[in-house]
Structure formats: structure tokens, C-alpha cells
């Protein structure tokens, strides 16, 4: 009843691993579709990758469907294209499955695969904007969260395409260089995000969760796949490229899980001015759970039953 944490930001409890699965599978699947469409310009038959991308997106959407409070009304999700990125994500998903289906059924229809690639990117972008629009979660609404989600999705998509090098050795250089560049971009986006979040302020718990994966993301998710990608390109080793891709996909999944389920601390409450009572003077403002407005001010807070 009087737990002090009820005033300070606490972790949101409404989106769990099912929502994270949508961002993990959907983001990487959308980017895989994009890179598959690009790779198809070489004329290779890439239907297996299109199928994998559609399956990933489908798995993600199925997971999130199970999280709905009223799943049998899910069609209502299409009602607010004017401003809701969740609606736009759903519309893009519908178009994406149509184009992807045509690309699978009629591989000669290059337009369908090209459109699928563009829609895959649009799907990834919609997901990033869903997070950015959530003003209640400081770690998501930060302006550098969107480029981070885009960068990791694109890197994961490239990682998932690396098995192409097994059957198509001529694509190895392209895939390795692409993966290396995208991983570097992801590391850069991550560092810029974490630094800016700490500088601009966020709930202490959110920053602690993100710091906990910082080293792993830079070394395991950054340096190792970059080295592996370069080795694969130099020594023409498709298996090494696949290994790099797998590392990128798994570290990306960990990043998204942390972002959605662990670092998702809510805003909490703040008093810019402490009301004048008793002594007749005000006091410095307070913001429990964040870096204090006045560093020397300590607060202890409680509420009645938590909402």
C-alpha cells in the first residue's frame, strides 16, 4: 500500500514478450524482405527468403494478437490510419502479405518482390514509429530511439540473408560488406541513443537496464560480427558470414527485448513546484526515480493503491 516505488517510474506491465516478439520477428522480417528484394536484382530465385520473411512477420503479428484484450475485434485496428502507427503497421502488413504472396506464386513478377521490399521497410518504420509515439515511456519516445530500431532491424534483416552466400557465392562480398556496414551503423545508433538518453534524462531503472547490455551489444553485437563479416569477405567463407549474421540477429533480439520489456519504465510523476503550506515558502521541485531536479533533494513518496 505504501510502497515508495508507486510514485517513481516503474516498468510497464502491459506489453510482455509477445509484444517484444512482434518487434523482434516483424522488424527483422521486414528488413529481410527489403534486402531480399535488393538481392533479387541479381536474378537469383530468392523465394525461400521471401517465405521466411513473411513467416517471421506472421509470427510476430500472431504473438501480438494473443496479447490483445479483445482479440476477436482485431479488425478494428484498421480504423485510425489518420494518426495511429499501429493502424498503419497493420495496413502495411496486409499489403505486404498480398505482394509477398504474389512474389512467391509468380517469381517472374519482379514488381511484386520490389513492392514487398518497400513494404518491408515501411513495416519496420511503422514499428519504430509505434514506439516513438508512446509518450508515457521515456526510453521509447526519445528521438534517437527511432534510428536505433531502424538500424538494428536493417542489420538483422541482412544477417538473416547471409545463408544466401551458401548457394550463391557471388553474393558473399555484397552480403558481408552490407552486414558490416549495418552493424557499424547499429553500434553508432546505439551509442548515440544511450548517451543522449543519459544526457537528456530518463528513469534511473531504464538507464540501468540499457547500461547492462551496453558492453555486450558493442562487443558481441558489434565488434565480433564486423570482424567475422570482414573475414568472410576476405577469405570467401560463407559459413563465417552466416555466423556473423546469426550473432547480429540474436544480439538484435536481445536489444529489442530489453527495450520493450526491461527498459520500458513509465514516466512517473513530478512536482515542478512544491506547494506552499505550513512554513509559507515553496521548495525545489521533485522528480522521484529520475535524476533529481535538485541533486541534494531527497524524496520519499507513496501513493494509495497503484493503478
Amino acid at each position, binding site marked *: 500500500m505504501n510502497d515508495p516505488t508507486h510514485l517513481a517510474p516503474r516498468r510497464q506491465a502491459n*506489453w510482455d514478450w509477445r509484444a517484444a516478439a512482434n518487434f523482434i520477428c516483424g522488424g527483422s522480417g521486414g528488413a529481410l524482405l527489403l534486402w531480399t528484394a535488393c538481392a533479387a536484382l541479381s536474378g537469383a530465385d530468392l523465394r525461400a527468403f521471401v517465405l521466411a520473411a513473411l513467416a517471421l512477420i506472421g509470427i510476430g503479428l500472431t504473438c*501480438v494478437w494473443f496479447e490483445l484484450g479483445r482479440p476477436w475485434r482485431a479488425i478494428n485496428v484498421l480504423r485510425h490510419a489518420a494518426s495511429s502507427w499501429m493502424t498503419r503497421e497493420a495496413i502495411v502488413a496486409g499489403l505486404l502479405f498480398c505482394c509477398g504472396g504474389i512474389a512467391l506464386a509468380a517469381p517472374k513478377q519482379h514488381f511484386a518482390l520490389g513492392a514487398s521490399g518497400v513494404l518491408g521497410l515501411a513495416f519496420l518504420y511503422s514499428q519504430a514509429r509505434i514506439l516513438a509515439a508512446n*509518450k508515457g515511456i521515456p526510453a521509447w519516445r526519445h528521438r534517437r530511439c527511432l534510428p536505433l530500431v531502424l538500424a538494428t532491424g536493417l542489420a538483422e534483416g541482412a544477417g538473416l540473408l547471409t545463408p544466401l552466400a551458401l548457394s550463391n557465392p557471388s553474393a558473399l562480398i555484397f552480403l558481408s560488406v552490407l552486414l558490416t556496414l549495418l552493424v557499424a551503423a547499429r553500434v553508432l545508433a546505439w551509442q548515440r541513443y544511450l548517451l543522449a538518453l543519459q544526457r537528456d534524462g530518463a528513469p534511473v531503472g531504464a538507464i540501468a537496464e540499457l547500461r547492462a547490455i551496453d558492453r555486450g551489444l558493442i562487443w558481441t553485437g558489434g565488434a565480433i560480427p564486423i570482424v567475422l563479416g570482414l573475414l568472410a569477405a576476405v577469405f570467401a567463407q560463407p559459413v563465417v558470414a552466416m555466423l556473423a549474421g546469426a550473432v547480429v540477429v540474436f544480439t538484435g533480439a536481445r536489444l529489442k527485448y530489453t527495450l520493450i520489456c526491461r527498459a520500458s519504465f513509465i514516466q512517473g510523476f513530478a512536482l515542478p513546484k512544491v*506547494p506552499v*503550506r505550513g512554513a509559507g515558502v515553496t521548495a525545489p521541485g521533485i522528480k522521484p526515480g529520475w535524476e533529481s531536479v535538485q541533486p541534494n533533494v531527497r524524496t520519499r*513518496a507513496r*501513493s*494509495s*493503491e497503484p*493503478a
Partner: protein
Amino acid sequence: MTRYAMVIDLRRCVGCQTCTAACKSANATPPGVQWRRVLDIESGEFPDVRRSFVPVSCMHCANPPCEEVCPTTATKKRADGLVTIDYELCIGCANCVMACPYEARSIVHENRYAYGKEPIASEVAHCDPARLGVATKCTFCRDRIDQAAVTGQVPGVDPEVTPACVNACISGAMHFGDVADPGSNVSQLLAETSHFRMHEELGTDPAVYYIWNQP
């Protein structure tokens, strides 16, 4: 254009939770869900310590982030400023819960009762299956405000058409009215005092004002 708002004088609030109880009674929210609650905040260092009581709920923002992200149009902003939820449209995706920086929204997926697994008589009477699995929040007692259009009474002045929490406040800390009307009770209060709104920097333009001092 009418814009209903709440003005809460933090200098007067004593943290008695009567508004919380009145809201519970009027809206029959289940255990664990409070559309209105009162934060109890201790701050400062001995001997200069303070205790502040801050009633919070849905802020009925003019730029509601919940309305922007809602994929179903279940959340809407009315012309008089009230932010509403259509329980028949809501799919319970919780996007609005994430978008709200005021912890105002809740989703309950199964019935909860105050005393064990079986409901008591009042819970049976007030049970609303439409609220299960969808987002819920403070409505500013919408039914009462809508009644004003029928009776010609004034919300914030006549208790019959005023939110239950405001009617129940024992210290006269809570006020309700039309801030777009310069002659209204709330407009006059705001003109006479120093006040702030919660998380104004997020651009939500909330309709709950907190008085903290004289001008």
C-alpha cells in the same frame, strides 16, 4: 468553446483519499484499478521536510497522446475537452496505456473482486462486462456532465452535474468547470493563483491544473 478542466489546490489537499473512495463508489472500479488516486510525497532534508498530496487521474489533455496512437478510434476527444473511450471499439492493445504519461489507464483481463473469488452483492450489481479486456480511465463523470445539457445546470457549480471526486473533497481543494469561460469558478481561481500542470513539457496540454501558491 467549452473546455472542462479540474483545478486542484495542493495547498488545501490533506490526502484523505475521499476523492479516491468517491470515484471507486461512483464508477465501481475493480480492486487494483483506481481512476483517481492521491500521491503522498515526502521531500526535503531534515529539518526542512515537506509532505505534499497530489490527486492524479486522466488529465483529459487537449493533445491526448492516447487518442493519437489508438488504432481503433475508441479513444476520442470531445468538443468540450473530455477524452472518452468507446468500450465496444477498443481491442485492448494497450498502446494508449503506453502513450499516457500520467498512468491514467488500466486494462483488466478478468473479473477481480474485493473479497476472494466470489463477488459481493454490490459488485454483482455494478459489474460491467464491457469493461473487461479494454482500456478504462477517469471519465470526469461524463454521465453527470452530459446531464447538465438536459437540466440546464452548470458542471462545477451544481453538484448533480459535477464529478463525484470534486463533490466529495472535504477540504475544498478540488474544483471543476469551464476554463474557456473567463467568468467561471476555475478561471477565476487560476487568475488568482500560481499553478502548474503535470508534465507540460510533453506538449499534452492537460486539463488538470495544480495550484501551489499565491500569484
